[in-house]
């Protein structure tokens, strides 16, 4: 079955205008690089600084993402060649950034959420290249590269200065534990991407993809509105530019400022994001397929509004001062103070765009992807790699905790959620091996597993503070 896809691929004629995207991407990469180079030269900075390297990585990852997506839409194989070269260059810059930081701090970059993301992106890019070269899953970059781009953008906003290690982190186990965690999480990310592709190959209906996309984006916006809506305004953390950190009212209590009227815009954005889902349910209920067409239109509106909301957010929050409900006076804020709001919004736009790609080019995509059997099998294999990694990650974490906190298991939120992740994947393996769950049910399980991974990685850090407060 795997051969089928490859044969069809070869028969695919090169799409017309195949050079346009290449030229566009090439021009923008060159332009951005030259602008960055001129900027650095003018400021008299160091050419090979970590931030410059990261910027180069960002440019090339973005270019690779665009080319992979272009390949997904047009099926021009040449795009992939360029896309993987771009990924490789991005990976090289990323590697140099990691090395630079390692050299500068004298320890592997695992100590803060910024450094974790740095390593995570590196692993994701590497795994993308491996999946492409070794397993022939060429389209995977169109999911993993946007993920990498979101992560690098997040990193630009997070405090990045090399902080000395607090006493609890001064341990060899830090490196072992975090390396395993990064490998495990990145492998889970790949299994997620593969499971999504399986759903495409398994004739998972466009409407269902629409519903899930809308639900995901809607969840992001509803979460933002639910936690940050403040009398029509949007409350964001105040930012102290001199120390490059959030402002605090007291111990562990962040100072929030309210950006007036922005809350309403987010509310509209949330409604627009949920609208396709609502239309989907109406279509299902009335058994009227024409409603789905309207729902697809609603996705357009949603994307448009998401872009507007993002732009308004960026413009209003960027280095401005706003009043705080908790303290008299105006306090400055910055985009850097809200990395996760921003990350969530960018992720929402990417998810919607991926849906559009699917909607327009489904048949081409189906021809390009490996067969559903192959995808099912590779997903399972990836999880077979991820599961032992997760196990060792938890075990080394426990051993380290035993040396530092005095107990190998203290039901800290991070520990508990790592255990939950482990249990979910254990459930996947049991259902697959003893119950023979294949195909769609297994794919759902793999997707759920990655959702839990993301929550464990980022959600727990920001929502459920505990002992594991570093990242």
């Amino acid at each position, binding site marked *: 079955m795997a051969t089928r896809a490859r044969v069809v691929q070869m028969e695919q004629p090169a799409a017309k205008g195949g050079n346009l995207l290449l030229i566009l991407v090439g021009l923008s990469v060159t332009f951005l690089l030259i602008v960055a180079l001129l900027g650095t030269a003018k400021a008299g900075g160091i050419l090979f600084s970590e931030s410059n390297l990261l910027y180069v990585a960002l440019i090339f990852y973005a270019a690779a993402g665009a080319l992979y997506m272009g390949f997904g839409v047009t099926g021009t194989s040449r795009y992939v060649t360029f896309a993987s070269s771009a990924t490789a260059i991005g990976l090289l810059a990323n590697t140099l950034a990691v090395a630079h930081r390692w050299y500068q701090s004298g320890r592997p970059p695992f100590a803060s959420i910024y450094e974790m993301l740095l390593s995570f992106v590196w692993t994701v890019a590497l795994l993308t290249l491996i999946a492409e070269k070794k397993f022939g899953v060429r389209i995977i970059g169109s999911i993993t590269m946007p993920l990498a781009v979101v992560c690098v953008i997040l990193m630009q906003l997070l405090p990045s200065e090399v*902080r*000395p290690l*607090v*006493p*609890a982190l*001064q*341990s060899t*186990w830090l490196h072992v534990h975090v390396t395993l965690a990064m490998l495990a999480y990145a492998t889970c990310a790949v299994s997620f991407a593969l499971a999504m592709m399986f759903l495409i190959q398994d004739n998972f209906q466009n409407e269902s993809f629409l519903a899930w996309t809308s639900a995901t984006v809607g969840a992001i916006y509803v979460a933002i509105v639910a936690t940050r809506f403040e009398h029509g305004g949007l409350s964001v953390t105040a930012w102290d530019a001199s120390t490059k950190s959030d402002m605090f009212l007291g111990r562990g209590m962040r100072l929030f400022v309210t950006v007036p009227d922005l809350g309403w815009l987010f509310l509209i954005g949330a409604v627009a994001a949920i609208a396709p889902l609502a239309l989907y349910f109406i279509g299902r209920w009335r058994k009227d397929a024409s409603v789905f067409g309207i729902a697809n239109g609603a996705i357009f509106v949603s994307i448009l509004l998401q872009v507007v909301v993002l732009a308004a957010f960026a413009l209003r929050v960027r280095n401005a001062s706003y009043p705080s409900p908790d303290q008299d006076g105006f306090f400055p804020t910055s985009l850097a103070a809200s990395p996760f709001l921003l990350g969530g919004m960018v992720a929402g736009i990417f998810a919607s765009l991926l849906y559009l790609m699917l909607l327009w080019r489904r048949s081409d995509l189906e021809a390009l992807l490996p067969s559903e059997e192959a995808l099912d*099998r590779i997903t399972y*294999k990836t999880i*077979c*790699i991820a*599961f*032992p990694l997760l*196990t*060792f990650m938890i*075990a080394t974490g*426990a*051993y*380290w905790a*035993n*040396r*530092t*906190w*005095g*107990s*190998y*298991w203290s*039901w800290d*939120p991070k520990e*508990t*959620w790592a*255990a*939950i992740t482990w*249990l*979910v994947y*254990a*459930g996947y393996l*049991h*259902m697959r091996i*003893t*119950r023979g769950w294949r195909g769609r049910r297994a794919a759902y399980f793999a997707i759920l597993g990655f959702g839990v991974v993301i929550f464990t990685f980022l959600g*727990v850090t920001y929502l*459920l503070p*505990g002992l594991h407060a570093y990242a």
Partner: protein
Amino acid sequence: MALGISSIPKRLHKTLGNLRTGIVLLLLVVVASALGTFILQRPVTDPEKLAQAYSPTTLLWLDRLSLTDIFHASWFLVLMGLVSLSIIVISVDRFPNAWRFYARPYRKTHVHFRGSLQKKIELPINNTEDGLNAAERALKKSGWPVESIADKSEPSLYSERHRFSVMAVYIVHASLLLIFAGGIIDGVFGYSGFMALQNGQTSNQIELRKGGTRQIPFSVKCNGAGQENYADGSPKRWWSKLAVVQNGQEIEAKEIVVNDPLVHQGLRFYQASFGSTGKLAGLKVAATPDTTGGTTKQSLAMPPPGSPRETTLPFNQPVQLDVNTTVTLAEYIPDFFIRDNQIFKRSDDPVNPAFRLQVKNAATGEDAKLWIFPAYNATAQGEKASYTFEYRDMDMGYYTGLEVSHEPGQWLVWGGVLLMGAGLFVAFYLVHMRVWVAAITNQQGNLVLWVGGQANKNRDRFEQKFGELVDNIRSELEGANVVPRSAKKQKPELTLAGVK
């Protein structure tokens, strides 16, 4: 009848031995654990914070349902116990079959068995013996162990690899039970608590985390502790010099830091925190004999006139300055203010301290009181004293916070972890592969070498291996007159030719 006494254990066994029950139990554990991270938990969270987060009625109900301490609640322990039981029952139920398969592998082939195999191929041969010999050579060359099965009607070969991987799943589950067992032992026999020691202090009491105190069979003495900072002021290193004291003797000493505890008699002492007691441990002053007053007579025991002598004054303990004179640090006010010519305390922060010294001279009967205000670089004297004092430094008392834990079950946990690692490796990465070779007469009536194979996982990798093996057998059959390279060229065709 259905609920007869004898049927209850059977039903229980049947329910617990069902994978679905196991999955439901695991799901309940997941839900309960997730709840435990969303609802603030009792021992970790301060009561005030809980009161702040929940209304009194909500808190009352959360407490009643023991949702504020899920992970130590009896129902959670019962749940974990049921999960363990379910794992045991399921494993015990399935074990005999697996063991039979492991202990008595199916070596012989017959018609029905051959038909059901995942991979099979027929190669024409001239005579049985040559064919089997060629196959044996090929198998050995590829590193497969070969067993000849003597059967008069159908002589055959059997070969397998990694049969042990069949049992790996039991190892993984056993290791999980081992970890649980370690956890249970620690829950029952283990304890953990806190011990705060000041410099020079000895203690054998720990404050248990659950509340209350506990006496340990030996004492621990702190022979010094400290904190080192980075340039930006954040802590870099905490250390404590600890000594184990038994019957008044120091029998073991170690400098502990975060990540490197002291272990003695199964008790572990961790460096957990370091802090100021807020109390003054000593005042460093420079004392200069006052020569202008002429009230004191020069003596040999005294330093030359006018030269200051640095000394540290502990609280309320007289310090000899010369033969007759003593000075005592009598009073310390961390943050003072003066009103109506009286000194009052404003706060406990040592930001604006004041010290009262009492200078006594046994010979002259002098008993002078004086104050030192370091922030103003001044002293105030009630009566004339034979010495003047200059402030140098103040030593704040500090304590080292030690986390103490006794976890007798932890070795079971680590053993379980290692076993699980090994088990997972075998389960996921070692494939049980079997190959049968037999010389048979096929349906067309030709003598052929039948080669069949099966793997319990990673089928595509096995297909590749099987293809290589068949290649080797073929080239062995063709003998020396075939150049091996041409056989290799045929490989892709052969791998694809494998019957599915």
